[in-house]
């Protein structure tokens, strides 16, 4: 999908007909829309989403979603069936041109704004065809599951690079790289109307004993569903709480009286995160040490006793064996004893030496003695080293614990200092912050309890499934129902294994892609990786005491800007891989490369020092980039990087007309030395799209 044009008509503040023609030139694949905050960037992004997905597509920060028609026109309308808002989006996909149009009259908006009319035309071989089921067709081209990774608010994308979002990361990989088919099939097979139906048939036809087990299985599965829903709810609560805390933190940061304290708190929290990551890593190393060598700590008595026995045998000259069998055999063969006496066969001396031969140890005995000697020494050495390593790691752990505790205490003092200010707004913000932190901890505890319940239920399901399978049915109908249930289970398992294998094999390819681009942007000794559980992580090496020694590799506690970079690089890498999907082996036939655009609202807000790198490299990865930016975000690094790479294909700006100018906006916009007026005083409020 490559965007070609968007036409807005009376959509929110975009009064009349307004259009943007996107740059579709591969070498100049960036289209920029300059707009001050409050002029309509978010509305523009949402107009595009509305055209594709209707009301379901809107971003969370798009307010008054039921009111889409220009307010002035709606207020003065005499006939609500003749006033309408519409968005027309033209795009290319697989060499065909599509035009999607969504329109909503005022009458429809008043009745049910979700009832907007949608049409989809395709231009194929010089002909224009109107397509049936337009929403289904659009979904086939750009499933709404990937919309969040293509059209998004850049300031919120940092959330993706957080450990708890590994499910979203996995979903993005599946969606963009064509593995969704396997995942959806698994879900459909497990549905109540497929597996559930076969289970019900089995229940109706089987023995009482099996029926009871099936009822228990059904109950357990219901509980798993309930727990899953509760976990989703807790996850949503946590997201909302974190957003609230972030909002409070921003307000505290903007308050002159507590700005410094708040900045210190942010620094302390970042440090605590990093120390926490170090501690986790240390605990992992401790666990590994105990699992690998911990047994040696309990071998002290064994080693002492072994050494004692060896010493005793050595004292008694029994080990190593002074005379071994081969030597005695040589004497017998040569017919000459060690004492120079002859040993004729059959003589008493010959028989005496022969007798000794039968009980004499061989060379293997001496080898074994030396191996035991070596093993006992080794065990003693490893035991000593393990004890020493444990002691060291424990000291490090305690030190880290202390460092974390010190920062916790400092943070608690900051809380007291901010809470103790006379400013009522500050007091109430701090009180709200504490409330949210308490609630966050409570939600985490709830999540832990739900996790334990889930594990218990899953164990029960496994047990019950085995018990059910073990009871063979006598009746043919029941036996057949059981075979069908088994087939569903087996196919689900096979498909899951295939999905896991394909996803796992994509991970290193994606990792290479992400890391290559991440290193270009982040100029530190960090590297990006997609962990085995599919969370995006940034890692670094912790140096040891000696030069060149690396004692550990740990997660870096990321700032919002670094998380944003990680998320953007991940998405751009996915887009890059999606484009060359057909080159990556897969069992699924017909997976072709797909091009998708990247449309982002305010992507540079939190990026600070990484703006240049993102502006330089992301257009290299994504086939098409549309940036909705404020002058403050664009000027400087972003403008320099885009100009240096020659990536800018088209530029527009939003001109705002209204009774007063939004806060912090400037009346004029300067781009490439060209000055244009972007604010016009007017009684009526509306926005125009103008090309630069």
């Amino acid at each position, binding site marked *: 999908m490559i965007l070609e044009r968007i036409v807005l008509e009376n959509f929110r503040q975009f009064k009349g007909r307004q259009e943007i023609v996107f740059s579709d030139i591969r070498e100049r694949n960036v289209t920029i829309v300059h707009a001050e905050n409050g002029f309509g960037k978010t509305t523009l992004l949402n107009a595009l989403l509305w055209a594709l997905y209707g009301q379901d597509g809107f971003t969370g920060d798009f307010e008054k979603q039921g009111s889409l028609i220009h307010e002035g026109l709606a207020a003065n309308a005499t006939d609500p069936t003749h006033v309408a808002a519409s968005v027309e989006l033209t795009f290319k996909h697989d060499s065909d041109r599509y035009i999607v149009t969504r329109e909503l009259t005022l009458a429809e908006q008043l009745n049910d704004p979700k009832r907007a009319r949608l049409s989809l035309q395709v231009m194929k071989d010089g002909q224009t065809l109107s397509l049936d089921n337009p929403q*289904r067709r659009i*979904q*086939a081209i750009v*499933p709404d599951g990937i919309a969040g990774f293509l059209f998004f608010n850049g300031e919120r994308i940092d959330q993706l690079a957080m450990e708890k979002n590994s499910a979203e990361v996995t979903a993005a990989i599946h969606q963009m790289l064509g593995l*969704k*088919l396997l995942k*959806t*099939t698994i879900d*459909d*097979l497990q*549905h109540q*109307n*497929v597996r559930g*139906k*076969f289970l019900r048939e089995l229940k109706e036809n089987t023995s009482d004993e099996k029926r009871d087990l099936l009822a228990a299985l059904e109950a357990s599965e219901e509980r798993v569903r309930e727990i899953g829903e509760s976990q989703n709810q807790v996850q949503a609560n946590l997201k909302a709480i974190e957003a609230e805390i972030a909002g409070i933190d921003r307000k505290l940061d903007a308050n002159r009286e507590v700005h410094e304290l708040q900045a210190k708190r942010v620094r302390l929290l970042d440090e605590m995160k990093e120390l926490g990551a170090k501690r986790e890593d240390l605990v992992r190393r401790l666990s590994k040490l105990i699992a690998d060598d911990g047994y040696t700590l309990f071998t002290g008595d064994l080693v002492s006793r072994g050494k004692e026995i060896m010493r005793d045998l050595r004292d008694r000259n029994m080990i190593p064996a002074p005379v071994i069998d081969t030597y005695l055999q040589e004497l017998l063969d040569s017919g000459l004893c060690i004492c120079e006496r002859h040993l004729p066969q059959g003589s008493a001396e010959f028989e005496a030496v022969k007798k000794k031969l039968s009980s004499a140890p061989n060379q293997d005995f001496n080898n074994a003695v030396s191996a035991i000697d070596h093993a006992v020494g080794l065990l003693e050495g490893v035991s000593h080293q393990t004890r020493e390593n444990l002691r060291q790691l424990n000291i490090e752990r305690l030190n880290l614990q202390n460092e974390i505790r010190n920062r916790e205490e400092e943070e608690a003092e900051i809380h007291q200092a901010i809470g103790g200010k006379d400013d009522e707004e500050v007091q109430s913000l701090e009180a709200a912050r504490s409330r949210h932190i308490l609630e966050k901890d409570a939600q985490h505890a709830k999540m832990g309890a739900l996790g334990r319940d889930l594990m218990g239920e899953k164990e029960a399901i496994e047990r019950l499934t085995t018990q059910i399978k073990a009871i063979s049915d006598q009746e043919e109908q029941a036996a*057949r129902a059981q*075979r*069908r249930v088994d*087939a*569903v289970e*087996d*196919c689900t398992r*096979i*498909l899951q*294994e*295939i999905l896991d*294998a*394909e996803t*796992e*094999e*994509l991970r290193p390819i994606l990792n290479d892609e992400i890391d290559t681009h991440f290193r270009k942007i982040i100029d530190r000794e960090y590297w990006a990786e997609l962990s085995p559980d599919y969370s995006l992580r940034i890692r670094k090496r912790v140096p040891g005491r000696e030069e060149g020694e690396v004692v550990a590799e740990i997660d870096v506690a990321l700032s919002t800007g670094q998380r944003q970079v990680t998320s953007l690089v991940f998405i751009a890498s996915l887009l890059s891989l999606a484009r060359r999907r057909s080159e*990556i*082996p*897969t*069992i*699924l036939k017909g997976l072709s490369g797909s091009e998708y655009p990247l449309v982002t609202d305010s992507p540079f807000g939190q990026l600070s020092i990484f703006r240049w790198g993102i502006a330089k490299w992301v257009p290299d990865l994504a086939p098409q980039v549309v940036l909705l930016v404020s002058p403050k975000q664009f000027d400087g690094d972003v403008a320099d990087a885009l100009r240096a790479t020659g990536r800018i294909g088209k530029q527009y700006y939003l001109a705002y007309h209204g009774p007063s100018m939004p806060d912090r906006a400037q009346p004029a916009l300067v781009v490439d030395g060209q000055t244009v007026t972007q604010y016009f005083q007017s009684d009526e409020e509306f926005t125009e799209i103008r090309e630069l």
Partner: protein
Amino acid sequence: MSAEPPTPQNRAKQIFSKASPEHQELIREILRAEREVINMKRRSDIHTRLYDHIRRIIK
């Protein structure tokens, strides 16, 4: 560097080829049906089709 890991094609194919012929046929049929409706939100029709496929193949 250790030896090259098997490609996904190989790994996924290995898993698939280990399945019984009956399961292989079922999986092929199911995926063919799913492919047509992959992005549809309404799933009731595909559920009926999957149910019928399984009934037809597993006697």
